[in-house]
């Protein structure tokens, strides 16, 4: 790969993020910044009950409030066949409730008024008569014969959604039967929420004259959403334009279609004016896509030397009232079967059962490739439990079982083909950075003095960039992604993408790929995303897929342009194409570097002096279907000190060595790692969307659902190794989710390690000081 100059700013340059100029000056343009002439406002009436029969909705008082324009109920939508909508996971979900409500905060009616305050006041006046029904909160009781059946709309009168299994059950069971060493852990990856800074919302603008619907939407996947609105709403697809403007964080929360969007569209269709609907913070936490809620058991069979022989995983997945996860069609439990992790398991068996409960729907992939965070957490916890059984150092046990570099491409026991990796190199680097041996000595000395200190390792493997069309689709749409590049006559460029940044820095990184391939300075490349009228079709941004898919499409489209540029250069230089050599930014005649044409000169000629027989213009489009996922990895090491008196956990050090293959912008990669680690810290220690026995949400405000701030966040020490992906056009792998996927296990392993001498083998997240203090108290430990 050519090294470009800092002026060009291709791959490997830490150029500053182009989008930050507007973000840091308050000049971003988010959905809630959009104000259209004549725009009115919607507000949702929500259920206070987790499970209740809906007897009547009386909107008379609300309608009488001056300024109220319309009130839409589930019965109104039912007349138009719109009271239910399909989810991205093949289930259906109520838009507005009819018959009964299934979770607290479920959408019951949509009030439209001239201003948002009137809409909110009117929503208070809507009188709804409910009859409470028995509530199902605990997923472990969902299949109990006495459990209330929640979804009486389904033919199957059961709370069971799916059973999914993969692997060789017989061989696994047999290995376990004969194994001398077994380790087992029951671990809950708790229900948490991405809580993006910007909540979900939209402005629906239906123009009765043109019959066009413009939908400004907090969408991570604008094209897929356009198609779904066309299929479900019956609006011709050419008459729908979805625009995702600046998005203030998504993390999977903005992948599903929410009832509020549909209500705003219906209201705009009905009233003929633009309708804005924006969630409040509590609405976001209580009703839109939550993440995780996986109740898992992992068992490892090993020999006496610590060599792993088999993995057996059984999981109960709580999907809430509707299966509104956004999984690829063939994967009801996502990529959870990556749970063999970085280790060479000869055989494995994994099964997942999904159930309904009276909780908010979701199961979205929070900064995660479809359940991979759950899988990585589980295997990294289980390996530590095995180390405890064997009384073996957890680093040594990992080293003994890593898939070796020479085994790649590696076919895992559960069917995945890992592209490349060098797990030991990443772990060795992290161990050295943290001075592991010294830390273990320090820990032994501290233990003698009764002080509590722990070291936690997580050597995770990721699988990102969904995905190959032969395996991955969402509601039938294959998971390719795209890029269209146009070079203007003056040599500047515009790139349009099928993906959609939510803060990841796409406007900078895609420009750098173009700079790398064409030598046009990254500052001269405008990147545009999120407008379905202009961008090529794509599946959007989540699952760390932008670089593996659209990034690849950008490189390939740029190469097509370079091929045409070569023809134009040959014409201009009166040389044959074969006699030309390329260096970033120009073609020159071999052996005569002064005989050269810059990409800018070539671009100008493409419009002013077109070679005979060649089409005018200089542009290309590529739809990239990756041959495989990419498999980033890394080792994270966390060091904690625990206060014996309060149970408070202090993260003393956190070392993160990531390998995401070739890097486009090191600064942006580091920023992604910092952000992901901070989210991982919050999940490990602070966050839980809890429900009481009546199904009342106990994590529905920022008073109960805690966000990490600079105060809680330790100093992140980052470094990298580089193992390029062999199948990606420029060897990149994707980084966005690695730190969130890999870090929870490191935090938990560290705390458990600090308490392991007390017989502690596992603590479920979030590990609050309260939990630790209770463990200390049970063991008679005081300050």
């Amino acid at each position, binding site marked *: 790969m050519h090294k470009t100059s800092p002026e060009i700013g291709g791959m490997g340059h830490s150029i500053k993020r182009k989008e930050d100029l507007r973000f840091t000056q308050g000049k971003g343009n988010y959905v809630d910044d959009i104000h259209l002439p004549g725009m009115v406002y919607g507000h949702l009436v929500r259920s*206070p*009950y*987790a499970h209740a029969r809906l007897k009547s909705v009386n909107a008379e008082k609300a309608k009488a409030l001056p300024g109220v324009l319309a009130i839409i109920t589930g019965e109104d939508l039912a007349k138009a066949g719109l009271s239910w909508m399909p989810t991205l996971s093949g289930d259906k979900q109520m838009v507005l409730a009819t018959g009964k409500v299934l979770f*607290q905060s479920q959408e019951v009616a949509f009030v439209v008024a001239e201003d948002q305050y009137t809409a909110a006041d009117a929503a*208070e*006046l*809507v*009188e*709804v*008569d*409910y009859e*409470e029904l028995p509530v199902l909160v605990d997923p472990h009781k969902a299949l109990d014969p006495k459990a209330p059946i929640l979804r009486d709309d389904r033919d199957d009168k059961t709370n069971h959604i799916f059973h999914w299994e993969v692997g060789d059950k017989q061989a696994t069971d047999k290995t376990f039967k004969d194994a001398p060493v077994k380790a087992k852990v029951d671990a809950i990856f708790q229900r948490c929420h991405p809580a993006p800074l910007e909540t979900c919302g939209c402005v629906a603008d239906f123009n009765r004259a043109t019959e066009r619907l413009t939908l400004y939407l907090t969408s991570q996947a604008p094209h897929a959403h356009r198609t779904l609105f066309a299929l479900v709403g019956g609006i011709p697809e050419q008459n729908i334009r979805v625009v995702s403007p600046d998005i203030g964080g998504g993390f999977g929360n903005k992948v599903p279609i929410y009832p509020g969007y549909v209500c705003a569209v219906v209201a705009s269709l009905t009233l003929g004016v633009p309708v804005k609907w924006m969630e409040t913070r*509590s609405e976001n936490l*209580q009703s839109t896509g939550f993440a995780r809620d996986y109740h898992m058991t992992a068992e490892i069979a090993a020999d006496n030397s610590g060599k792993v022989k088999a993995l057996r995983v059984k999981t109960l997945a709580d999907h809430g009232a509707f299966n509104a996860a956004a999984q690829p069609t063939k994967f009801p439990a996502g990529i959870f079967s990556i749970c063999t992790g970085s280790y060479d398991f000869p055989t494995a068996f994994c099964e997942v059962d999904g159930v309904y409960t009276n909780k908010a729907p979701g199961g979205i992939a929070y900064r995660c490739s479809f359940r991979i965070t759950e899988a990585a957490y589980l295997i990294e916890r289980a390996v530590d439990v095995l180390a405890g059984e064997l009384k073996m150092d957890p680093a040594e046990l990992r080293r003994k079982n890593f898939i070796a570099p020479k085994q790649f491409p590696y076919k895992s026991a559960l069917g995945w083909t890992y592209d490349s990796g060098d797990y030991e190199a990443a772990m060795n680097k992290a161990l050295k950075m943290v001075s592991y041996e010294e830390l273990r000595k320090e820990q032994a000395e501290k233990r003698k003095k009764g002080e509590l200190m722990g070291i936690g390792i997580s050597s995770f493997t990721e699988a990102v960039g969904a995905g190959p069309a032969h395996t991955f689709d969402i509601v039938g749409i294959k998971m390719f992604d795209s890029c269209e590049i146009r070079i203007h006559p003056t040599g500047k460029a515009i790139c349009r993408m099928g993906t959609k940044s939510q803060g990841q820095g796409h406007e900078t990184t895609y420009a750098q790929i173009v700079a790398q391939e064409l030598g046009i300075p990254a500052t001269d490349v405008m990147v545009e995303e999120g407008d379905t009228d202009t961008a090529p079709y794509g599946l959007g941004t989540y699952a760390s897929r932008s670089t593996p898919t659209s990034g690849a499409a950008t490189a390939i489209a740029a190469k097509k342009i370079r091929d045409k540029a070569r023809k134009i250069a040959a014409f201009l230089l009166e040389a044959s194409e074969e006699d030309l050599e390329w260096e970033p930014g120009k073609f020159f005649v071999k052996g005569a570097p002064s005989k050269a044409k810059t990409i800018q000169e070539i671009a100008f000629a493409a419009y002013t002096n077109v070679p005979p027989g060649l089409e005018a213009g200089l542009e290309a489009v590529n739809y990239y279907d990756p041959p495989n996922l990419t498999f980033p990895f890394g080792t994270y090491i966390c060091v904690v000190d625990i206060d014996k008196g309060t149970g408070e956990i202090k993260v003393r050090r956190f070392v993160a060595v990531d390998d995401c293959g070739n890097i486009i912008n090191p600064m942006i990669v580091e920023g992604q790692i910092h952000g992901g680690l901070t989210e991982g810290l919050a999940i490990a220690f602070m966050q839980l969307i809890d429900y*009481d*026995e*009546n*199904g*009342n*949400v*106990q994590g*529905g*405000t920022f*008073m*109960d659902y805690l966000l990490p701030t600079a105060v809680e966040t330790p100093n992140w020490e980052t470094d990298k190794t580089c193992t390029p992906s062999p199948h990606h056009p420029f060897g990149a792998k994707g980084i966005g989710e690695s730190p969130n996927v890999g870090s929870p296990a490191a935090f938990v392993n560290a705390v458990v390690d600090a308490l392991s001498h007390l017989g502690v083998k596992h603590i479920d997240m979030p590990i609050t000081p*309260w939990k630790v203090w209770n463990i200390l108290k049970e063991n008679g430990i005081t300050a």
Partner: protein
Amino acid sequence: MAIKIEKTFQVKEPIEKVWSLLSDPYKVVTCVQGAQITEQIDDRNYKGSIRVKVGPSVTDYKGEIQIVHLDQEAYEIEILGKGQDVRGKGSASMKMTGKLRALEDGGTEVTSISELNVVGILAQMGARVITEVSNIMFEKFTSNFRQQLQASETAGGEASQTHAPEPISGVSVAMSALKAAFTREKK
């Protein structure tokens, strides 16, 4: 969300007099701020309402009150109240057990165990706030109860039931609850 509040307080009035107040739903209800009995169905069942205002959220519960257990000899009463918010914001039920014990000095000890179960908007406010709101409500009840005892003395046994019920003071309850929540040790 279930909350159990157990309180004991002492009054100087004799047990018979306290019992006549505690065992009369019409009188007891006036001690609960914002509550009123709207209809008597039979000697054990009544209809009533209570308005609770916490911060910006007003909840008007309408429902039924049932005397589940009344033991004249043991001075024990168990009352079950169940209500739904008229605008469909949620429901609440409360089982209150009251028990009296005569004290040597001629006064009476009142023990009350309330089990409150809240569903809906109020319950979302988090256990800390709702527990504090309940505590404040109960303190109000206690002071009203004492006042009723004294009032019945001066007014010749008939408590005034004519005044319209005031809702439990909104902002002040919310503020005291929040303050209590923030200043308590967090679990």
